[in-house]
């Protein structure tokens, strides 16, 4: 009964500083909102993230029709916005950052292509846009690699074509009357059974080349060696399975981060009570010392639980976050997280000589723990040693627990490990906290 009265008293004290309470609720939501605007998800849809990549194309010698088709194809893919321009302007655009990359087709590319001369395509990349420029490079590289593979096979099997086309007569061949005019003109000319030996030879070469290309295409369509790939990352599985709501990671991460500030502020209140003398008065009253510290632990945990509950409910309404497969899982995760957090920061309050020292200590710890414990960046993306260090913070286990429930929609009973660790941390630290508090009765229970 005495504990309940003290819990109610602490709750009232906490609510007296409503602005701090509002900040602790508003900031995670604000940051999650920014995440939504930046990366999409929830009611923001999936349109956010990397926008169409501005690409400059340089190739004045390409036929207009080919340029239009290339531009249309790239634009319609939704990944690129294309500008045909000259090399000087493309260079300036990339250097200014107006284009993430420029793809430069060399002069006379078509002639070089057909006469089997050396062709060098170039990609110019914007130094300030390494991600987008990298995407352009990757896509072009893949396309060119496919072509290179086909040509390597062709010229291995029919090297005489290269030798023949490499001759000076190759240009004359393609520029001969046989290929004058439009495609329709050339086709009609070749359809007629001309007696002209030059036409006959040209047709023969063309048909032979077509036959070889057809055989090559058919052979390349069969890939005896295949790579079966399985992606571990849930984000990588996104395309195959279902939409992953990034808020299921971001909101719990930011919520635990601000929960630590809120809980630390509650524990710091012990120092203010000692300064005001109210803590000493409580110890002189018939209330047991163990009740004082346990009541403080429970009341701060309850406040934390209330804060997380509000955040997750608002997140469910605004960002459509997943609240887990069953209410019990989320309840247990929230409860264990709050009890462990309060036990940790109570221990810090008990060992800190002054409020200011505790203030600095907790802020440093919160920032470092958040960084290495996966509150800002998913644990999967961190190096192994950072993750190993992160395991020493309770928030690491809280993040995994929320990730299991909210991101992977698993019941806590399926993976109770993180929950048990948090419960263990809470139990062990509270035993220590009680012992420390009792032995320091003369100093108001604090260091």
């Amino acid at each position, binding site marked *: 009964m005495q504990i309940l009265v003290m819990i109610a008293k602490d709750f009232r004290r906490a609510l007296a500083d409503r602005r701090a309470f509002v*900040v602790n609720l508003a900031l995670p939501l604000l940051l999650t909102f920014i995440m939504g605007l*930046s990366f999409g998800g929830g009611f923001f849809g999936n349109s956010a993230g990397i926008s169409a990549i501005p690409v400059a194309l340089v190739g004045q010698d390409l036929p207009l029709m080919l340029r239009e088709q290339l531009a249309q194809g790239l634009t319609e893919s939704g990944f690129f916005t294309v500008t045909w321009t000259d090399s000087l302007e493309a260079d300036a655009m990339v250097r200014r950052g107006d284009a993430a990359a420029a793809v430069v087709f060399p002069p006379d590319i078509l002639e070089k292509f057909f006469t089997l001369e050396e062709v060098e395509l170039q990609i*110019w*990349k914007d130094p300030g846009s390494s991600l987008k420029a990298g995407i352009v490079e990757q896509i072009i590289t893949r396309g060119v690699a496919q072509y290179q*593979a086909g040509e390597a096979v062709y010229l291995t099997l029919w090297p005489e074509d290269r030798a023949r086309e490499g001759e000076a007569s190759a240009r004359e061949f393609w520029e001969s009357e046989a290929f004058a005019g439009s495609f329709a003109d050339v086709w009609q000319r070749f359809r007629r059974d001309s007696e002209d030996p030059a036409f006959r030879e040209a047709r023969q070469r063309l048909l032979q080349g077509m036959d070889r290309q057809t055989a090559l295409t058919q052979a390349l369509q069969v890939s005896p*060696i295949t*790579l079966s790939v399985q992606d571990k990352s849930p984000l990588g599985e996104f395309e195959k399975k279902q939409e992953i709501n990034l808020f299921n990671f971001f909101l719990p991460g930011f919520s635990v981060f601000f929960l630590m500030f809120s809980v630390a502020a509650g524990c710091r209140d012990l120092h203010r009570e000692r300064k005001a003398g109210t803590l000493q008065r409580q110890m002189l009253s018939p209330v047991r010392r163990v009740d004082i510290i346990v009541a403080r632990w429970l009341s701060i945990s309850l406040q934390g639980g209330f804060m997380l509950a509000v955040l997750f409910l608002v997140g469910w309404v605004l960002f459509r976050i997943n609240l887990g497969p069953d209410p019990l899982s989320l309840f247990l995760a929230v409860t264990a997280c709050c009890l462990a957090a309060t036990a940790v920061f109570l221990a810090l309050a008990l060992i800190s000589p002054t409020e200011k020292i505790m203030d600095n200590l907790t802020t*440093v710890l919160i920032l470092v723990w958040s960084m290495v414990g996966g509150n800002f960046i998913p644990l999967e993306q961190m190096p192994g040693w950072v993750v190993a260090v992160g395991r020493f913070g309770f928030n690491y286990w809280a993040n995994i627990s929320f990730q299991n429930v909210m991101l992977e929609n698993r019941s806590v009973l399926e993976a109770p490990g993180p929950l048990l660790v948090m419960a263990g941390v809470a139990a062990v630290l509270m035993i220590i906290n009680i012992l420390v508090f009792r032995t320091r009765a003369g100093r108001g229970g604090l260091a």
Partner: protein
Amino acid sequence: MNPSVIMALVRLRMLRVLRDRSNLVWLFVMPMAFSFLMGQMLGDWDPAGRDMRPLCLVYDLDGQAAADALVAPLLDNDKFRIVRRDTAVSEDRALELIEEQRITAALFIPADYTTRVARNEPVTLRLLYDSDRLSSQTVRTLLDEGLLKLNAKQAALQISRQPDNHGALPFESTRFDQRWNNPRVRLSSQTLGRLPDTGLKLTSSAQHVGPAYTIFFVMMFLMMSAKELVAEREDRTLSRLMVSRATSLDIVLGFFLGGMLIGLVQAAVLLGLNSLPIFGVDYGDSPAALILTVVLFAGACSAGSILLGTTARSGAQADGLGLAVTLTMAAVGGLWWPLEIVPPFMQTIGHSLPTGQAITIFHDMIGRGYGVAQLSGLLLGLAVWFVGALVLGTWRLRGLVSR
């Protein structure tokens, strides 16, 4: 205006900051720790010189020539290292290892791989990987390239063996390799910047992290110190100053210059530390642009701190608002992730904030080698924030001390 009073206020502010040793943690230790940690997480820094490359396990049950050829292109890579095992674990176990970050990918080569390749029979390799990791993606890209070559080779072999092979020569592996290694159509790429093709990755390495966390912590320290002004209001020390020979302008300038000096010292130390060989950040070719940027940003933050300190009603409120402003500006301004990956309207908002302007200036100085002239637009933006915050902060503070 009394310069001696202003200098005394500046000196007092500096002494108060430096005497509290915990401030040194916030000024210098935490920013460098964050830069280091973020650099580690993004995988670019290896200060100890140890082999930090993630592990790619190859479970090679074949162990013969074709498997050797498959693995060969993966052996010498700066993003991962290969370890071959002649036994295999279950796929579940391999996935666990990837989950636990102990390996970046696992490739399973079946026992009869070489035989099947020789017979041109279908064979499937199994790759378990993590698309969120660059090292893992690189493994996949290299394997795709290797398989493209193998399949092209098989295609050539198949055509040459067909009765109607359209006059194809018998397949020769050396001729194919020669064609493969010397393609007629080539692709070359270069970065058009100040440091072309040196692997500069502005948005994903120390080149971004160092300046970004310098900007972040300069802003954070000054915004969080706004509560000192609130405390001075509550303790009535502001009023006491007014009954001394200090004018309201002296007090405003004293507070502003004190904060700005702290920001400048902090930025100078952090930028200096980041330029050490261990971190290797260089700031381009224009010291003038660098100095101007730091001065304008520190000035804007100091003025913003005064504005916050005169607006907040309590120390706790100043703390909360300071944290909110700093975190929001950092997130939207592109200090935590590059602005190029967010939608255009978020880029516009980001570039209009002082954090976005400052980090873009750093990017342009480092990557493009821009000087004051090319950066004039962004510098002007910073100056607008500086002047705006200073005017508002001065108005609020003069209003308070004049009462």
